[in-house]
């Protein structure tokens, strides 16, 4: 081999390697079956010490077992560096999974993880939608439809306004004044949900008097609520809180300021993560039932469908709310595979909600 030929071979090999590195796993042959037959799926997600993470892992594990896949789960304690380390170690172990299910904790900081994982197997991103930098390495998204969750919030707020009007409540403005306690600033979850809420209420908008960021736990909900509520006391009729955990903190702040939730003010929470007591006793008008276990199960199904078909088809599959889990559709997944999401208003709404075999209490607070 002449030096020129050797040089050409090296250049070709380098170009091929770069192509693989930059582009990740390209279209591949499908196995033709959604059954795993003992193959491995690997999942990178948040810690099971969080109720949402625990339920998500539970759902994914049960679905993987049903489909004959071996599911390996790596949990991070809400830490991108920890997740980076897990990805590096997993890759170094020489494992060859059939697909990767990946929830990046900090999407922008996890791009290198997605890139590295995409060289190993097709990546299905979970819970947090890929951004333009990560899409080249991700085959499909599976998880919550934040716009839909926001729309559900908007619809529940409209129903809350009707209920308040029927109960004889006098609003501080003709549309009703709305105070919002949102997720931490910059979180895509919050911004997408906000877009959905605005879309759902565009024909019957509320008078938004303030949006406060940073409420995502009982403690942060209380910390912020106890300061913002006195400032706007007597000026708001409706509250939208990011999730029910944070709503529980805000409810404590309202009560301490002499405001009775469900009477002086109507509260809607974006999702039920945390507990349902306040929805059952009427302190929270309604909440979104976001089934983490179903999200985990759907991610495994999306991965299995991708492995079976070797690619995606279409842009969106929105799963409908069904009491029992439907049979897996053996066709290819879409680019966006959204889990079902349902509103629950009052104790009846909680009692009547069942998604994929899980009741509302199991979904939200177990």
């Amino acid at each position, binding site marked *: 081999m002449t030096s020129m030929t050797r040089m050409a071979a090296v250049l070709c090999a380098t170009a091929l390697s770069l192509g693989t590195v930059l582009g990740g796993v390209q279209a591949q042959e499908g196995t033709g079956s959604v059954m795993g037959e003992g193959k491995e799926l690997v999942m990178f997600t948040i810690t099971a010490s969080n109720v949402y993470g625990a339920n998500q892992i539970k759902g994914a594990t049960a679905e993987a077992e049903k489909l004959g896949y071996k599911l390996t789960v790596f949990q991070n304690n809400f830490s991108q560096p920890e997740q980076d380390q897990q990805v590096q170690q997993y890759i170094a172990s020489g494992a060859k999974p059939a697909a990767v299910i990946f929830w990046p904790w900090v999407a922008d900081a996890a791009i290198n993880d997605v890139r590295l994982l995409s060289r190993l197997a097709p990546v299905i991103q979970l819970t947090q939608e890929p951004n333009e930098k990560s899409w080249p390495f991700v085959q499909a998204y599976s998880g919550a439809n934040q716009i839909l969750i926001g729309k559900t919030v908007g619809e529940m707020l409209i129903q809350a306004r009707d209920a308040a009007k029927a109960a004889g409540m006098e609003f501080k403005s003709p549309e009703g004044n709305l105070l919002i306690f949102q997720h931490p600033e910059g979180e895509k979850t919050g911004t997408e949900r906000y877009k959905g809420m605005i879309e759902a209420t565009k024909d019957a908008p509320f008078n938004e008097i303030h949006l406060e960021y940073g409420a995502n*736990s009982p403690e942060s909900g209380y910390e912020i609520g106890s300061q913002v509520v006195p400032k706007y006391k007597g000026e708001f009729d409706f509250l939208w809180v990011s999730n029910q955990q944070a709503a529980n903190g805000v409810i404590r702040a309202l009560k301490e300021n002499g405001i009775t939730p469900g009477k002086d003010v109507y509260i809607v929470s974006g999702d039920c993560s945390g507990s349902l007591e306040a929805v059952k006793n009427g302190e929270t008008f309604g909440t979104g039932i976001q089934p983490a276990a179903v999200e985990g199960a759907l991610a495994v199904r999306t991965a299995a469908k991708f492995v079976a078909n070797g690619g995606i088809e279409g842009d969106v599959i929105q799963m409908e709310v069904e009491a029992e889990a439907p049979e897996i559709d053996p066709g290819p997944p879409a680019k966006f595979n959204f889990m079902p999401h349902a509103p629950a208003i009052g104790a009846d709404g909680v009692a009547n909600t069942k998604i994929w075999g899980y009741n509302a209490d199991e979904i939200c607070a177990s």
Partner: protein
Amino acid sequence: MSEPSGSVTAGMSPTLQQADKPNRPDWLPMALVIGLTVVAIVIAVAVTPKFLTVDNIRAILRNAAIVGIVAVSMTPITLSGNFVSLGISQSAMAAMVSFVALVGTGMPQVFAIVLVIAGLVAVGVLQGAVVAAGLNPVITTLAAGAIIFGVVSEVSGGGIVRAGDAPLSWGGSTVAGIPIEVLVFLIVTIAVTLLMSRTVTGRETTLVGANRPTAEVSGISFTRVTIVAFAIFSVGLAIAGILNGAAFGQATAKSFPDLTIDSIAALLVGGTAIAGGQGSPLRSAGGAILIAVISNMMVLNDFSTGGRLAVQGGVVVIVVVVLDLMRRGAFRR
């Protein structure tokens, strides 16, 4: 060799007196904290409508209370030269989860409170003994925090622990218009301040932090001082966990996510020297209130989350630097 006791005071009086009389006026750091708090309040009143309302002042004190209780009770650890604990969030969370779980089983609340305090003190004493044996306090508390978090996570399965139908509403109640956690904060501050300033144990703690070799020559046991400091701290952590458990009626392994950083910030802003020997629980309480005032002012003036964190961090840095410069100046004199 016999352990020194509180009665062995005659021989060590001169040294203790030295520890009691630092090289600069002791009121200077406290004056700095009070001065900064007054400045913050004046600015807040000028730029924030509704700042001086009863509801808002109550909110500030409520937000300072839990952090304040922990910062005040951690001060003996720092004063004794054992830096700070990095397992604060996890220990307080364990107290909160345990209290709610015990009450949820139907146990009378008084028994649950006693059990939780006893359990936390046992864990704290164990950490104190390990630190006294020579292990780095930061690493020891960090490791203890990880173990506690891991155990609670496994036992609770990541789920929410509830008190069930137990009447826990006293957690959000008031006495003569004063929130219960604020009253407890006041009581804890007075108790720990008196303990540190008016008892032999307190003075020994300060001396060990100021000059350990001298203290040991004077017959003061570093082991005993460290264990007592960790025990006091554990009582504070248990109280914080119980108060929050009573207020929310439920708990998870992720409760108290920011308590470690917030408490350390309050302690440092209060002017307690991280290396030990200088400071007081009263100043830590002042630090907690100062941070709560600044935080409240920023929330009410719509500062972004990033802006709030940056300003809070900036205040900690400024106060610590100013106090350090004051200390250096005092030593030069």
